[in-house]
């Protein structure tokens, strides 16, 4: 229990310290994020990979309203907690070359967001989950709107109103579940045990689904995403794509499936179709993008589409694939955005056609970028492969037609990602790229870590699969059991 509380609140304490650290905020926040990574690894090592919830913290909070501070870690949470604590130090390190104004506020907000994210990923109380959900949103809004690029105010307002609209309807769903709950609390287990008829499940499904779909984002709730990713500062984009969109996926797995399985079943066909449309649609748009950052943003929509398709297939392979792919996608997308940031910082552009031939000037960057791209296009032997393979298997078990179309994502992805790589890194050097300096210092460190993760997890994914297997299986059993009892 103490470990978990420490894990959650260390970043918050760190945020407060960082806020007053002035010029040394960079160092302070790095130290704190590395310490919390160590803590997360410690917890992961002591984690017994079965279906139980471990390191539980269950404290009274607002007793009159049945709200408790109840958090815990099972296999599903463990994975995303690891992802969060892994990516935050990477993201902070990746900002070393930048000189943001008000660095103290910048790093404090990142750490504050980490607490919000960890609350989301460990909450066993729906109210706490909601608080974490919003607590993660506020800092990222400020990060993107304060340090972002042009037109950032309008874009971030759209992003903010979009996401908060979703979450308010989710809040309505949560209150409804609370009122249905005879125990008068927000305990997740009590919500799992609720006996709702299919009409109730239907609308609660929608209340939650829209919130999660906006966060991920699933077509047609994605319209905020490319603009926001492009206008945000690189670290903001990394936070959004690397960790924040996992909130949506995690929410579906943790809250949507087990609470309203009948609702999911009734609407899974539609959700599946939306996911698949998202894959094809985003891939096609990615083809036509001239800006590499936008291209990656759209590719992210395609990847998330596949993840959600895998989840709504409602089988072991699909869910396991989603779990693994969450981690892989987080690592890969952060790598991609970091490389693009490096290129942008040297050439002041991310336009694909203005670049070219960087590989000659920067061979090391070319190699690591290639590894990241290959991980993203799911080449066997990289981390992306395991996840996409499982996901496609899951979708295949749902329906061959679905798998056939969803499988396009791999082909499309390979085409536009490799073409982007080709146009940016290979070919003739021009006056912009001739003076390109290779990666150095923290850039090297961050990219090497990312590449190592891509290869190691690709070659030996077993511990990862093992970590989540029991929990995923337990979840599916719960869902199936509940489905048979509804009928």
């Amino acid at each position: 229990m103490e470990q978990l509380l420490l894990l959650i609140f260390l970043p918050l304490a760190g945020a407060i310290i960082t806020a007053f650290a002035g010029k040394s905020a960079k160092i302070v926040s790095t130290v704190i994020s590395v310490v919390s990574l160590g803590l997360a690894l410690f917890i992961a090592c002591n984690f017994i990979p079965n279906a139980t919830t471990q390191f539980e913290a269950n404290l009274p909070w607002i007793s009159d309203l049945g709200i408790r501070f109840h958090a815990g870690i099972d296999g599903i949470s463990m994975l995303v907690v690891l992802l969060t604590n892994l990516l935050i130090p990477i993201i902070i390190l990746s900002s070393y070359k930048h000189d943001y104004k008000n660095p103290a506020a910048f790093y404090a907000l990142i750490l504050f967001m980490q607490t919000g994210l960890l609350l989301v990923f460990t909450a066993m109380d729906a109210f706490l989950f909601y608080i974490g959900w919003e607590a993660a949103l506020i800092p990222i809004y400020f990060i993107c709107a304060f340090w972002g690029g042009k037109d950032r105010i309008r874009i971030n307002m759209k992003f903010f109103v979009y996401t908060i609209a979703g979450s308010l309807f989710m809040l309505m769903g949560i209150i409804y579940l609370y009122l249905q709950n005879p125990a008068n609390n927000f305990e997740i287990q009590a919500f799992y045990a609720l006996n709702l008829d299919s009409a109730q499940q239907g609308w609660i499904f929608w209340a939650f689904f829209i919130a999660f779909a906006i966060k991920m984002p699933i077509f047609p709730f994605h319209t905020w995403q490319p603009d926001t990713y492009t206008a945000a500062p690189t670290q903001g984009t990394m936070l959004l794509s690397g960790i924040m969109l996992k909130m949506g996926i995690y929410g579906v797995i943790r809250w949507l499936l087990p609470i309203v399985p009948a609702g999911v079943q009734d609407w899974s066909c539609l959700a599946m179709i939306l996911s698949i449309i998202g894959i094809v649609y985003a891939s096609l748009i990615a083809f036509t993008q001239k800006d590499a950052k936008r291209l990656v943003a759209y590719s992210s929509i395609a990847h998330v589409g596949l993840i959600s398709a895998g989840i709504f297939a409602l089988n072991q392979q699909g869910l396991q694939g989603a779990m693994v792919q969450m981690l892989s996608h987080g690592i890969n997308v952060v790598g991609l955005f970091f490389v693009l940031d490096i290129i942008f910082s040297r050439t002041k552009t991310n336009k694909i056609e203005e670049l070219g031939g960087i590989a000659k000037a920067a061979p090391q960057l070319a190699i690591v970028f290639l590894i990241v791209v290959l991980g993203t296009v799911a080449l066997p032997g990289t981390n992306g492969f395991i996840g996409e393979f499982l996901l496609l298997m899951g979708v295949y078990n749902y329906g061959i037609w679905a798998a056939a179309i969803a499988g396009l994502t791999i082909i499309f992805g390979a085409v536009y990602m490799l073409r982007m790589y080709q146009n940016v890194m290979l070919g003739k050097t021009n006056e912009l790229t001739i003076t390109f300096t290779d990666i150095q210092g923290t850039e090297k460190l961050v990219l090497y870590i990312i590449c190592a993760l891509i290869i190691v997890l690709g070659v030996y994914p077993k511990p990862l699969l093992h970590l989540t297997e029991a929990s995923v299986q337990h979840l599916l059993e719960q869902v199936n059991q509940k489905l048979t009892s509804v009928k």
Partner: protein
Amino acid sequence: MNIIITISITAFIVLYAGLFKAKKALLPLTVVGLLTALGFTAAAWNGNAVHFGMMQTDNFALAFSGVCIVGTLLIFLLTQNYFHAKSDNVAEYYTLILFALAGMIMMVSYKNMAMLFVGLEIMSVSLYILAGIRKKDFASNEASLKYFLMGAFSTGFLLFGITLIYGASGSFDLDKIQAYLVDNSKAISPIFYPGVILMMIGLCFKVGAAPFHFWTPDVYEGSPTLITTFMSTVVKTAGFAAFLRLFADAFAPLHDFWVAPLIVIVCITLFIGNVTALFQKNFKRMLAYSSISHAGYLLFSLVVIGANSQNSVLVYAAAYTFASIIAFAVLILVKQKTGSDSFESFNGLGKKNPLVALSLTVAMLSLAGIPLTAGFIGKYLMFLNVMGEYKMLLVAFAILNALVGFYYYFKVIVAVWFKDGAEVELSTPSQYKVVLAVSVAITLILGIYPAIILNLI
């Protein structure tokens, strides 16, 4: 009873202190008086005493008295250099505000409708003068006249309502009226119903709920900002407490009858308040319209009367009061420097005055209802109550309105942090710092650990 006596005596002492030109002593005297009154409030806790059958200091009354007194205290702290720059007769301001406060204490603790009327009038008459206290200012005069005419009009409604209810039930006493309704539930006199509606209209006028809100923006804009602060926070809180006392208590047996018009009023209020606030260019006017929309959320507590109604109004009113005090305090500071209260004058405030800007941000987040601030807990309680009766559409409507609210509150945050402006450095007097710090602390504490206030009543 002690509370009212203390406040009234303080008011007289302050008036005489002003007569003897003891300007320096005014504020300390007032603060001491109010702290004493606050002490009496705390001492009377759980006492539930009835005073001459006219007033009842139950915990409901005491909790709201507490909020009103603390709110007034904070506003008094904001007077530093404010009135002195505007007028020679500073003592009158203090006295009138204190008299208004005395009236409000009556409004939150009445047991007899006569006391409601007396309290309301003591408060209103003081406010008519306060609104127009800048004698040579056209806007201030307009505000005062509008407020007076509308106020007199609404008092007429209220009084007529009281008369009809007296005619039907034969009593001014809340308990007796309730008993009449329960005993004669089959044969309630037909004149009782219009009485209820008239009283509802009269009170809606006072709290500024649409469609009886037309006076609010002009009066709020025209009055001196500090008086606007007072009117839109403390006065509103007292108005709602009076509303709740009457409708959640005495008229509760007739809930089915008056809930339908009330829902209509709630919806109109939310819609008009939010949508109009969206289009304001002027910060003060935006706050005025947003105060209308908050009146809409507060009325939610009457739509479903349950065990939680009183508490949720208390939490919401407290959250709203403290957040508004921050907003107005910053407005006063900005206006002193730039001479304007448009949104543009807030541009770039965060660069030179990070702490003031941070306070304003917290206030805006709280008004918008973002978690971890008191405003969220307030809104959450309101939604929870209404969801309890499964009035889903009403909640969905309120959520859509809350979204509109985010938009205009964030306009302020955007101006403060993200826009480039004149980068003026505000001169923040020490007392303002205290007020901002206290209000921010209350807002955050209530947001993170609301358990301390939830069981109060």
